[in-house]
């Protein structure tokens, strides 16, 4: 298993303000000098990850105190030059927020060049509530997603003449990437899934499939992926095709690890702070999905505790651990917890690790990263060679 350090790069001083942390929080609440200090701090932590042999994942959000990275590629452009070994993952570039897919391809190519071919690229839909900032059309989004995807990949992998593109949604007289990417035909592509249905599509295409904070649901996501991959390619996918995102708090002793976990927990409580009318802009989710969501109730999508109950947003650290969203303890304990979760979900080759979240401070994050890189990562690397018994149950 490979480990990827990930931080949302929060402007955590805003967490004390009442009300929403996304969409409506006024920008006057942001002190830009403090924002700059925090952004540099998070970059320093990514460099520590590189030093201790971990890989790097960045994301982006818009109009949110919970995440100040507003462009994956801007953040990765810095890290491409300031790191030397880590693979650099953008997970992901939200195509719902991009009006110009050729521009997306240009930025991918440039960062791949800068990094010497260390870039990995997630193409994702994007958060529904961020349509209020991008103002992209909510309806018919998936058609535009796949056309943008086709164009981006065609541009990245083109070794022939420049081409023109007259699609249903995008129109270019000439597509020409200067520079073009080092990795050919293109950097590895990642996508994210929260159900077996979406994972199947990615399995068919052979892309790396990540699931975020989904707990036990990860098992059915991975199972759907494996089945579709096998049906299309005739072989089982390597574990490196599957990824799971969770929070990790590792410390020399258990009490310190739990104390740090408490500081990280505000990641969960602030992520949920959003006025309800922005959660689901009209026309973005398919009608059938909206009906199912309404009929199932608000808790249906929450991760589950072992007794089947929904994990409360303000749950305890122990509850978050039980649901598989948080791994907390000494290096030995975190290792054991990860091995157990790995085996329960049928195995995955990438841990997308939030070693910084919420209000966890720099020294604590540095210690967390160092312990994970030096003491846990080498043991987890051997997991890929273990045989996991995979039962293929029917999944929805």
């Amino acid at each position, binding site marked *: 298993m490979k480990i990827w350090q990930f931080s949302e790069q929060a402007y955590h001083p805003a967490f004390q303000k009442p009300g929403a942390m996304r969409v409506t929080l006024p920008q006057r609440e942001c002190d830009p000098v403090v924002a700059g200090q925090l952004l540099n701090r998070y970059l320093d932590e990514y460099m520590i990850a590189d030093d201790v042999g971990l890989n790097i994942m960045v994301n982006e959000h818009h109009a949110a105190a919970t995440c100040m990275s507003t462009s994956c590629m801007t953040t990765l452009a810095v890290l491409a030059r300031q790191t030397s070994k880590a693979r650099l993952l953008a997970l992901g570039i939200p195509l719902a927020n991009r009006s110009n897919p050729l521009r997306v391809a240009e930025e991918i190519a440039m960062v791949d060049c800068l990094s010497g071919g260390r870039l990995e690229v997630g193409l994702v839909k994007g958060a529904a509530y961020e349509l*209020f900032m991008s*103002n992209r*059309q*909510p*309806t*018919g989004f998936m*058609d535009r997603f796949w056309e943008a995807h086709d164009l981006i990949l065609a541009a990245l992998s083109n070794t022939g003449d420049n081409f023109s593109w007259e699609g249903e949604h995008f129109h270019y007289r000439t597509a020409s990437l200067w520079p073009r990417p080092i990795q050919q035909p293109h950097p590895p592509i990642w996508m994210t899934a929260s159900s077996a249905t979406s994972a199947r599509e990615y399995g068919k295409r052979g892309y790396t499939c990540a699931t975020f904070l989904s707990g036990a649901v990860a098992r059915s996501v991975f199972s759907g992926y494996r089945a579709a991959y096998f049906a299309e390619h005739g072989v089982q996918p390597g574990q490196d095709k599957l990824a799971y995102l969770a929070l990790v708090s590792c410390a020399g002793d258990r009490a310190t690890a739990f104390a740090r976990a408490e500081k990280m927990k505000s990641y969960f409580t602030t992520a949920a702070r959003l*006025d*309800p*009318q*922005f959660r689901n*802009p*009209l*026309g*973005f989710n398919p*009608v059938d999905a*909206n*009906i199912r969501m*309404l*009929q199932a*109730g608000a808790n249906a999508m929450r991760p589950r505790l072992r007794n089947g109950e929904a994990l409360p947003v303000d749950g305890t650290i122990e509850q978050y651990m039980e649901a598989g969203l948080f791994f907390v303890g000494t290096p030995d304990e975190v290792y054991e917890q990860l091995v157990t979760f790995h085996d329960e979900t049928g195995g995955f080759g990438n841990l997308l690790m939030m070693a910084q979240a919420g209000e966890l401070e720099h020294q604590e994050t540095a210690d967390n990263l160092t312990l994970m890189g030096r003491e846990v990562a080498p043991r987890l690397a051997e997991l890929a060679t273990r045989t996991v018994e995979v039962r293929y149950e029917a999944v929805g």
Partner: protein
Amino acid sequence: MQSQGLEELSFGTVSALDVLGTELEFFVAGDGAPLLFLHGLDGLEGAAPLQRELAKHFTVYAPSHPGFGASAGSPRLNRVDDLGYFYLDMLDQLGLDRPVIVGTSFGGWVAAEMLTKEPGRAAQLVLVSPLGLPTADRREQYVADIFMLSRQELGKRMQVGEPALGSDMKTLATLPEDRLRRLMRNDEAASHFGWSPYMSNHKLGDRTHRIASPTLVVWGEGDGIVSAKYRDDWRTALPRAEVETFADAGHRVHADQPARLAARIAAFAGR
């Protein structure tokens, strides 16, 4: 077609109508001179009380717009400009030469688009709380952004009387699936046609001078969606139109004052 169970429309007949390959849910009621009714964001069912009153004077023809109710949608029909042409084709297909055309809110925009393309196609044109003109100028908004309001807040602001069915999340979740599906489809279609530019065609005001049919514009005095400035813009766009403002009515004049509105439409049409 899943339009069974619309008991509020039991005074007429719902059937399917294929217009150039798009299957519409199509409601017909009453007898008398032909009247085309174009519903608003609340769908065909949201204007049932008005249609019941109109059916006492007219033969009411009322489609669910593409993507609304149980009508098929099409990614190629994504501008209200497209709907203008689409409904002119539908009138040709039905052999309706010069019906009275009535549109409420979003449907008023649809009606205006039709008439800019065939200026005399309506015997009389009635626009009730019409949308379609530019809804804002840079930072100044003339029309409330329905996509930024909670379902509950929007439900309250649409009329001065009781909110429509499913205007709060609690009752919404308990609705039978076919009703829920209609509401979700109406929401999706509102977004499809009205997300951006918000509920408007920026060229509409350059074309409204073409409208030759006698026109009546009706507003609700308590409209919580459109501002006075926006009503003035419509007066400028249609300088020859009669304008009437109903007391005790909000944006959904047809829900607050169905009998009075129907009587006014009938009088305007000389019935």
